[in-house]
């Protein structure tokens, strides 16, 4: 494989140096690790069952027994927040996977086989004629509310943008000498695509992944809020906010905690994404002053 300007990822130890200099990003990484730990250890660390309804404990303010208070069914908000971390990660990883696999396939194949590209990229154009949230909204109306459908729909929405980006980059790669060289040695199409072109796309894909992960959180929360996302019984941060809407005047904590979790997580992922993107920028070395 020949290396192009597209892969300028730094060695791992350099990231430690940069993280040390960008303290805020370091905090963001730690926060994300906490979220991952919470998601993995949810059954052991959450003080109550997130689905346990208790009519006596309705809308209790945050206290020593219920740190984040309780909701209108008397369910413990902290426990639901902890389980919500699981949903956040499932939605994020799932959407990233769908968007990147689909988008890379469409983008690379379209660039490599130009006839097929005309058809595929036209399809992408049509889907991109719809505003992102609107497209997600219509598709979710067609499908049942479920975790898998939400992941598929959000993934599809970002598949189009990924396909566009990868298409552009693959077109450039296709014109490179090393692809011609591989063709001359008799390499098959799949070998050229997978062994020669794909490795050059890893770094932009990684950056793209971080931003899709962040956007997916906001989109999923918006869908939940409109009643078209995850099934209502699933304890996701978006669903918690959707339910809290009626009670905001009596129980503002129901709005505050899940909201802050979404904001902090999306903020942290964006910071990490910025770091990844900057590390691909050749001018990066003399410009590490930003946040």
């Amino acid at each position: 494989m020949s290396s192009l300007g597209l892969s300028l990822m730094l060695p791992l130890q350099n990231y430690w140096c940069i993280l040390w200099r960008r303290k805020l990003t370091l905090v963001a990484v730690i926060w994300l690790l906490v979220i991952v730990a919470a998601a993995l250890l949810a059954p052991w660390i959450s003080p109550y069952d997130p689905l346990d309804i208790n009519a006596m404990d309705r809308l209790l303010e945050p206290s020593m027994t219920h740190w984040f208070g309780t909701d209108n069914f008397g369910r413990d908000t902290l426990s639901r927040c902890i389980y919500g971390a699981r949903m956040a990660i499932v939605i994020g990883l799932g959407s990233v996977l769908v968007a990147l696999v689909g988008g890379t396939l469409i983008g690379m194949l379209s660039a490599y086989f130009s006839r097929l590209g005309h058809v595929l990229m036209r399809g992408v154009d049509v889907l991109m004629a719809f505003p992102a949230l609107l497209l997600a909204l219509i598709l979710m109306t067609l499908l049942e509310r479920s975790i898998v459908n939400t992941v598929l729909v959000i993934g599809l929405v970002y598949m189009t943008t990924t396909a566009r980006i990868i298409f552009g980059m693959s077109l450039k790669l296709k014109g490179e000498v090393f692809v011609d060289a591989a063709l001359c040695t008799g390499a098959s199409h799949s070998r050229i695509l997978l062994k020669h072109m794909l490795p050059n796309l890893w770094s932009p894909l990684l950056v793209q992944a971080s931003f899709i992960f962040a956007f997916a959180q906001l989109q999923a929360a918006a869908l939940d809020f409109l009643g078209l996302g995850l099934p209502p019984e699933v304890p996701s941060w978006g669903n918690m906010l959707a339910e809290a809407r009626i009670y905001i005047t009596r129980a503002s904590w129901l709005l505050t905690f899940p909201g802050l979790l979404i904001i902090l997580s999306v903020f942290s992922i964006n910071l990490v994404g910025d770091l990844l993107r900057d590390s691909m920028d050749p001018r990066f070395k003399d410009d590490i002053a930003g946040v």
Partner: protein
Amino acid sequence: MSVFIIKRLLSLIPTLLLASMLIFLFVHLIPGDPAAVLLGDLATPEEVAALTTEMGLDEPVYLQYYYWLTHVLQGDLGTSIFFQVPVLTVIGDGAETSILLALMTMIWIITIGLPLGILAASRHGTIVDQLCSGGAMMAASVPTFWLGLYLILIFSVGLGWLPSSGFPSLTDDGGVFNLRYLILPSLALAAPNAALIIRLVRSSMLDVAREDFVRTARAKGLHPTRIAVKHVFRNALIAVVAAFGFTFAALISEAVVTETVFSLPGIGRLVVQSILRRDYPVIQGVILVIVVLYMTINLLVDLAYARLDPRVSLK
């Protein structure tokens, strides 16, 4: 330039046609029978069947699409099943709210985003820059509906300064003062978008500042303010104009959430409500209008881009 415009316009036609097919198909795949929904729970199967025939819903889908498209091309989007008035009238009723909301949001974005972006770029690397960029990234991480609910909690419920929901028309009692109903919604909608503009103005100004002609200007001994305004900002504006266009286009769909939070009688809420009511003609019409609007704005952005940067149309 004119060749470029014509080319771009022509390329819209097949995309639009395919999009209209997709909209029609989507809407017809939505589970639920509009005739049954319209007649309610007490209707007999015969009544439902009769209404289905009357509405033409028993015809093959491609024929229904053909009828719909030919009517649309004549400016007739059909009749709302729920309201029993033309779809265009229903959309027109929501347009005032949505357009005013979008305009107010753009005003916030321009008055907050632009100055802060320029400030961050001109104080590059200082604490001011870090606060602006960090704040912008934080604002971009907030779900708009959450921000909307919190604004209601603080300014409507807590302080009682501003109304929390609804929007009477400007022609109703109160006149221009009715715009106060849109202050909180537009702020909630503006926050993440202003954040994008701040980041974009900052980064494109920094990009331009690295160019050779800026160094030349500096070497000539020009005043820093003059360099910032005349040389850097002017060239950075190209990217910023494009961003404004895309932001405006994005507002259309983001308004769906904001209008729902603040119960505004706009086009965004119309989308959600007509989906819930299974009002096929309205769903189709509204989505078509939004898609056409979205594509038009994107086209205008492209043209503005080509106008500001002659290299674009030459490609």
